[in-house]
């Protein structure tokens, strides 16, 4: 009897334990055990101000300059494909540094595998994708109508600007105007994988810019640094300039001039100082500043072009020394042109060896300790904290980049006026520019002579401002001028860069390469 009881008791304990185990076994884990929200990474659903943030993100793409990696919009790849490729500047730096990549662009030896060509393509398309994302978010954003339209205008402006750069660099490119649903979608939609014609791209650009013109306020009603009506009108005018639609160019530039929002700065040098940021002359300027306690600017813009130590050495230099103004440019300036000084840092090669003292007091030694003869003064930003803001990060100096200035608008106005037969108006415009430059009035009268005078003025006014190469191509004299400057330019081929080889391969060979490559 007792026996039985003991057995039962032991069994009791066991049954209890077994039951507990069984419950555990059925797995106390609830069905949401596997629904784990993402830690530390926001999604579209978690951000209430998504549209506004994406718009700022679009502006941020203007600063990208990762030429060896993720994509370049205004970094060294952009500098190489605009300034260095033209007769304004040479590769610079030491003879062997970047002889492959930049050397190729300098002498028109580029192949479809050139790294900078690839990073320009991916940089601009990356920017365009950000624009498309922002536009998609803006469709459903909760903001008042006027603000929404303004933001859409700003984003479409930037998209138009990116396509403008793409079409000038590569010709027709895939016309991407929406966000792909997935990688599949992008691979199967023909629009993503075939090149639209240059004309189609231009139409698209004009649409975007027109919307921006109509929906952004004037400059004095806009936050500094944001896109405003004057900016949109000026870029649209430039687009028409490339299409040779002189009437439109005239109308738009006339609008800008008469809006009263802009004026030339009396001192040319001042444009390039930090104090001259967002001045009355500034129309489209890439903003730089401080973020996360560090300098925040276009990646590498200043340091790639800073004066470089060479020869005897013995001083801490300012950069890698690329994009040096060419002898061709330096000797072409007229006597007394006040624009020469602020554009070119001239290295002292005299026997006295005084060196060159820059505006902030920094002394660049004489030629026996410096690699090159000339450097781009328009890319110089002082490292002296008492003169200009600098927190120590050379790669991201706070140097605003001037993409459109009032002077450019005046020159476009002049060119359009001349083409429309209004030589007088054109001469007035040129003379305004020349007077500021400390030069006498132009001797040109009309027609071809005046045209060439305007073109010449463009060169000196906008030297080293990423315009020269495109200007020469649209003027139809790229081959003539560049070959005369000693470059290997082949007409019918070198007006455009090659489509990157990797992109052609990834498109399944649907993208057609440019002629000659």
């Amino acid at each position, binding site marked *: 009897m007792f*026996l039985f009881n*003991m057995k039962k008791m*032991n069994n009791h304990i*066991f049954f209890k*334990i*077994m039951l507990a*185990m069984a419950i555990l*076994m059925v*797995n106390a884990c609830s069905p949401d*055990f596997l629904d*784990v929200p*993402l*830690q*530390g*990474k*926001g*999604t*579209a659903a978690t951000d209430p101000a998504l549209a506004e*943030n*994406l718009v*700022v*993100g679009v*502006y941020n*793409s203007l600063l990208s300059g990762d030429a060896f990696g993720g994509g370049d919009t205004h970094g060294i790849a952009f500098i190489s494909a605009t300034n260095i490729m033209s007769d304004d500047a040479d590769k610079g730096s030491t003879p*062997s*540094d970047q*002889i*492959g990549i930049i050397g190729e662009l300098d002498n028109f030896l580029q*192949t*479809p*595998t050139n790294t900078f060509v690839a990073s320009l393509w*991916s940089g601009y*398309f990356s920017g365009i994708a*950000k624009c498309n994302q922002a536009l998609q978010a803006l469709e459903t954003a909760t903001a008042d109508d006027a603000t929404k339209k303004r933001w859409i205008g700003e984003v479409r402006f930037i998209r138009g600007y990116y396509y403008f750069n793409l079409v000038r660099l590569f010709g027709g490119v895939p016309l991407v105007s929406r966000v*792909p649903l*997935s*990688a599949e979608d*992008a*691979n199967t939609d023909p629009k993503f*994988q075939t090149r639209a014609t240059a004309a189609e791209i231009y139409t698209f650009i004009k649409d975007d810019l027109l919307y921006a013109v109509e929906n952004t306020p004037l400059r004095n009603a806009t936050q*500094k*640094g944001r896109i405003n009506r004057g900016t949109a009108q000026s870029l649209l005018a430039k687009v028409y300039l490339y299409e040779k639609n002189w009437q439109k160019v005239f109308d738009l530039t006339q609008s800008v001039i008469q809006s009263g929002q802009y004026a030339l700065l009396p001192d040319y040098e001042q444009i390039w100082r930090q104090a001259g940021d*967002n001045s009355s002359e500034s129309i489209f300027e890439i*903003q*730089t*500043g*401080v*973020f*996360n*306690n560090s300098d*925040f600017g276009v990646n590498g813009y200043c340091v790639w072009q800073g004066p470089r*130590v060479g020869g005897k*050495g*013995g*001083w*801490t*230099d300012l950069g890698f020394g690329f994009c040096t103004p060419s002898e061709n440019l330096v000797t072409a300036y007229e006597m007394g042109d006040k624009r020469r000084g602020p554009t070119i840092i001239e290295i002292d090669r005299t026997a006295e060896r005084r060196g060159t003292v820059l505006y902030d007091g920094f002394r660049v030694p004489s030629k026996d300790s410096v690699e090159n003869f000339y450097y781009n003064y328009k890319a110089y930003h002082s490292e002296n904290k008492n003169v200009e803001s600098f927190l*120590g990060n050379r790669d991201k100096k706070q140097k605003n980049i001037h993409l459109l200035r009032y002077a450019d608008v005046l020159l476009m106005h002049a060119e359009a006026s001349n083409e429309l037969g209004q030589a007088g108006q054109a001469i007035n415009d040129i003379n305004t520019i020349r007077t500021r430059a400390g030069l006498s009035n132009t001797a040109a009268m009309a027609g071809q002579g005046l045209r060439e005078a305007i073109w010449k003025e463009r060169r000196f006014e906008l030297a080293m401002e990423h315009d020269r190469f495109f200007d020469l191509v649209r003027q139809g004299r790229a081959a003539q001028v560049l070959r005369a400057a000693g470059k290997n330019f082949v007409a019918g081929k070198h007006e455009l860069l090659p489509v990157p080889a990797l*992109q052609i391969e990834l498109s*399944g060979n649907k993208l057609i390469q440019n002629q000659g490559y």
Partner: protein
Amino acid sequence: MSKRILLCAILSSAVVLYLQGQEVRVSGTVIDASTRESIIGGTLMVKNTSSGTVTDTDGQFSLMVSPGSVLAISYIGYTSQEITVWNDTTLNIELATSTVLLEQVVVVGYGTQRKVDITGATVSVQGEELAKQPVLTATQALQGKVTGVQIISSGKPGSSPNVRIRGTGTALAGTSALFVVDGILTDDISNINTADIVSLDVLKDASSTAIYGARGANGVVIITTKKGQSGPTQINYNNSIGFREASNLIRMANAEEYANYASAATGTAVTAGGTSTDWYNEILRRAWTQNHNLSFSGGSDKHTHYLSLGYFDDEGIVINNRFQRFAVRYNTDYRLNSRVNMGITASYVNANTRDVNLGTAYNNAYRAAPTIPGFEEGRYGNTSVYQNVGNPILDLSNNNNRLINHRIQSSGFLELKPITGLTFRSSIGNELTNVADRGYNFQFNNDLTTFLTSGGNQRNPNSSLRVKSENSLRWVWDNIVSYKFDLGENHFNLMAGTTAEQYTLSWVEATRQNVPADRDLWYINTGNANTSTNAGEGDKWTRNSYLGRLNFNRSDKYLVTATVRADGSSRIAAANRWGLFPSIGLGWLLSNEPFLKNNTLFELLKVRASWGKVGNDRVPSDAFTTTIKPNLAYPFGGGIATPGSAITQIKDPNLKWETTEEFDLGLDYSLLNGRLFGEIGFYDKKSKDLLINVKVPSVTGDEDGVVLTNAASIQNTGLEFALNWRTRVNTNLDYKFGANLTLNKNKVIGLNGGQPILDGGVGGAQIYTTKTDNEYPVGSFYVLQVLGVFQNQLEIESNKSGNGQIRQPNASPGDFIYQDDNDDGKIDDNDRVFVGSYQPKAYFGFNGEVNFKSISLSFDIYGNTGNVVYNGKKALRLSPFDNIEASLAYDRWVTGSGIQTEPAANSGYLPASTYYVESGSFIRLNNITLSYALSPAWLKVARIKNTRVFLTAQNLFTWKKYTGFTAELPDDSPTRSGIETNAYPTTKTIAGGINVSF
């Protein structure tokens, strides 16, 4: 009357208690039947439980079992025995030698099985085999011993090697095998002290790994740590002390050779000067390494414990590099009664690393000119001002990076056996890690205070401090029920269970500049607050699974094992979250069949076949969710920037499991009285829906140009051969030899979406060097074919294609002639060809041991063949002032030399070509150890039972065809492996040590 009844009741209940709950003690000795020597470390396992013990240094054992338990005694090289125990007994067990390894008990997923009953492909390695080698992790010691397993180690102190089982079966989602340590699933075993390991079991084929479902695709390595044993406490001390140095260094040009080459390459006169610096010599050193272990093992009848302490110190052959690890482990088992059993294993490891930024320094040591001094009179030679390359010695000394890693790994289990054959087991394992990372960069100028010549870009105007703290916790909870029963000759073993797992991680980092150089002031507060930056992130994922297994054995002749597992993971999108992974294995023991039972040739002949499906879900948690990248700011009007964000990555919302289906055939044999034994195996693995980063065109707007998606299928087919010979000549001499060979063929069989994957960019003009495409192995090299060298201008001009175009119009004499594969008149990416893969076609090992009286000599050799590697270092020459390898200094092409294999002196920047692709075949003497067992009488007086001294050398000699540093390159990602850029040099170690037991 009642008193009598009471007394009777008490007595009978006492008997009942005695019979039911009471256990019996079984103790005794285990000796070798022929030599009469005691067997140390023999295993005694109580069948159908996981309890057991191990014989001590006298061959003695003692444990408590419930009456009726079957005790299985086994030891490697001997025939096992089984004895049923009913009451307290002392057994004197004599084991007869048998080299039928298959009698041993091996660990399988969630249980143990006799090797002879296994239908899948598994291998078991004893802990002592692994402990012999002076390496950090047990997997490194595994190299060359097991078919189908490739171990690739780097020489870096504190690093864990890659374990690749049966070829690369995935492209991205982690190629490493799964490690299970005492039930805890982990990816990193650098914290496990090899001396604590009892056995290491490798599960290779899908039918054995299917029980691990979603984690089994790359194979599983199960590690069991030592438990204690009842009896007097045993103390064991062993150490090994030695030194390490770089084993294969390339000789770089000296000052004269360099001056000659650079003059030719630059066209300017480069002079040799007074110094000739050997940069590798400057940054490498002979390093000391030591390893000490002390363990205590003992227990009573109910309670056994094992405590071990270990200290490992590896200086690292690169200056300033050092790794130290302190480990303590405590394992204990407690048997409450015959039905309840519980245990705990716990370990704490403190690993301290002084890290060096090897990438930059190593690259610079290759490129720096030997004409510049290294470090003289307290100042550095300025290579930066000369050739824009940093001084590598300064690169390694201008910073101080320290990582302290605390890791607690523990598990506990509770086992209940309510009735015979039925067992419930619940176990919880967890792993808690904390990493404290501190990096300081010294401030230094590029003037004469630092350098011998001033100038250059190697300078740091502001000192900076970065402090990071990272915490992670992983827990896994298993609940398993198993039931074992027999129906006559048919034995069944059923198992069902469920497991849940969770992992959380979070880290915080802060940096500030202008922190003083005094080490005691390396805290964030001493820096300039105006320069503060901070960052932090986290991760969390979970898994949940249901599993079941059936083992069937009929008369020890016919074997069936079937498993099924359902896995759900939070890292896969909800629509595809659950995966089902079944498997089946069949075995036939021919040697137990009547027609073979009495034959004299075979002791064991077994055929087995299996099929299984396993998965792989090792993807980042955000792999299928579109996330927003924050802090993309813009400073409107200058000043402080306004924050913004963007969507920069395209994700695949339909991400699903990778699955691998594997078919396996095997033959296990043992003949000639067990002297010759081994196995032959065949496997065919098809892995599909593999996650891979597919390059997408820039027009999609994906900033890094890649999207993670299931896009590939890979097939691995192979043959494995293992052959062992073991014999005892007489009482004094015995020896054994083993050889294994694995042949593997890897092939991409499908690319969904049709896009080949281009990867392996090295820099310069070499944007990609590998192409993964159908019909070729993963990560095959795809480069231009070099045909020779242009000897003169005439050859350049006459090198025309079919349509009359000069193929290389811009070439000069001395440049390479490339093959125009499509004969279109120009050399471009369309002319690239496939030239082989980094995956070896065959890898093999050969090992042996000879024991003569008290002396023992063992060695093992490892090698592979049939693969190629890419000499990425040579490809990184970016300037004519860069240094070159000594062999190229004079062996280059010059006018009139007629050389066809080397180009003229050049400034680098050459395209990817077969010039950089070299054979990866090698053979290495992995380990050779000589040991001597001391046992003079006086040791016994000091109560020292056993002493052994040994001398060992690791990686003493390598024969390889490759001209670079090492042909063994740890995986980067499967589509870009086998490229040597900054590989840590492999090291050879010579050490000696002593093992003592008390």
